């Protein structure tokens, strides 16, 4: 594993209703791509059981470089943490074809 194959994986779990605006902002932070899946669970804002549109969660995963990851985390903190059900975490990942990201 060489240093340049190491990238950041940012994972955000949040409300479905945010999808469109959040993705736009993530791209503005410099991310070149992302993966979205549906998610369910429970947290400080109660059970998000996906029974109703307002209770649906998504999980957004972004592989990017450290600078973009930092920009995304800053943006989340500034704009979303206060009012939305949101969890995010960042980890190092080793990726194939690292030049893609």
């Amino acid at each position, binding site marked *: 594993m060489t240093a340049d194959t190491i990238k950041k994986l940012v994972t955000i779990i949040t*409300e479905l*209703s*945010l999808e*469109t*605006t959040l993705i736009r902002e993530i791209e503005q932070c410099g991310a070149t791509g992302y993966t979205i899946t549906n998610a369910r669970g429970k947290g400080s804002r*109660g059970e998000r*059981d*996906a*029974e*109703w*549109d*307002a209770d649906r969660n998504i999980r957004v995963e972004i592989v990017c470089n450290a600078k973009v990851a930092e920009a995304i985390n800053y943006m989340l903190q500034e704009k979303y943490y*206060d*009012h*939305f059900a949101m969890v995010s975490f960042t980890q190092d990942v080793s990726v194939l074809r690292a030049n893609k990201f």
Partner: protein
Amino acid sequence: MLDPIILFFIFGIAAGLLRSELRLPSQVYDFVSMLLLLTIGLKGGLELSKQEFSTIAPQMFAVFVVGLILPLFAYPILKIWGGFKRADAASIAAHYGSVSVGTYAVAVSYMASLNIHFEEHLPILLVVLEIPAIIVGILLAKGLSNGTNWKVVSHEIFAGKGIVLLIGGLLIGWFSGVEGIKTIEPLFFDLFKGILALFLLEMGLISASKISSLKQYGLFLVIFAITMPLLSALIGISMGLMFGFSIGGTAVLATLIASASYIAVPAAMRISVPEANPTLSLTASLGITFPFNILIGIPLYHQMAIKAHQIIGG
């Protein structure tokens, strides 16, 4: 005798309260609600193809104004008497100014099962009534100079699934006309009640899940969620009389105005007034007002419409 679709709704509530594992797969629910929205749109469009637009336009305008006024009326009640925060009061007010297509569908089915005639162009008024309360709600929460991104908000409103399907159905119905629509009638019109039954089963399950979170929010929300539709229904009845609607049409219009949104408004409010607690407004509109309108409201508004017509008609 109770209409079987109402029994489906009660069945859903009972299963939900018993914490049954039962639920409609979300794709099936999406499909069922899509069919309902399209059918209601198509019916309105068919009627539009028979009528002069100029006779409907004043009604559309009047309904639009009511959509602006209802949240302005609800907001101070929620804020002063209910003691809700500004954002919460504005958001709940917006829910009650807008409409519920599900409630409308049940009213249509109620009239059909009693063979009562009603004005078929009501879906057009439904579309008009969806929107103004959202705008008023946002303004109430944030004031005029607030940096609301209206571009994003209007996209959320007009590109939302409900409005797109209703307007799409309206246009298709309008262009096709009665003859043209015959080929798709079996799916959209003949199956309407069966589809509505499935929809109400799921709505019962969802209502039950909201009812269980009621305890947290106290008595005021319950009283508001029952009183507000009753007052709105009175406005609806007077408008029906003003438009010269039949008894059926007056009752359906009253139901429409008495109903509270649970799809379009929550989505728009979440984006534009994020500090409002979405559980509050959904608990009120889905946990109380929707079941109230389905089980008690519609027959009651029908009786009110009969009385009103008797009084006016002499």
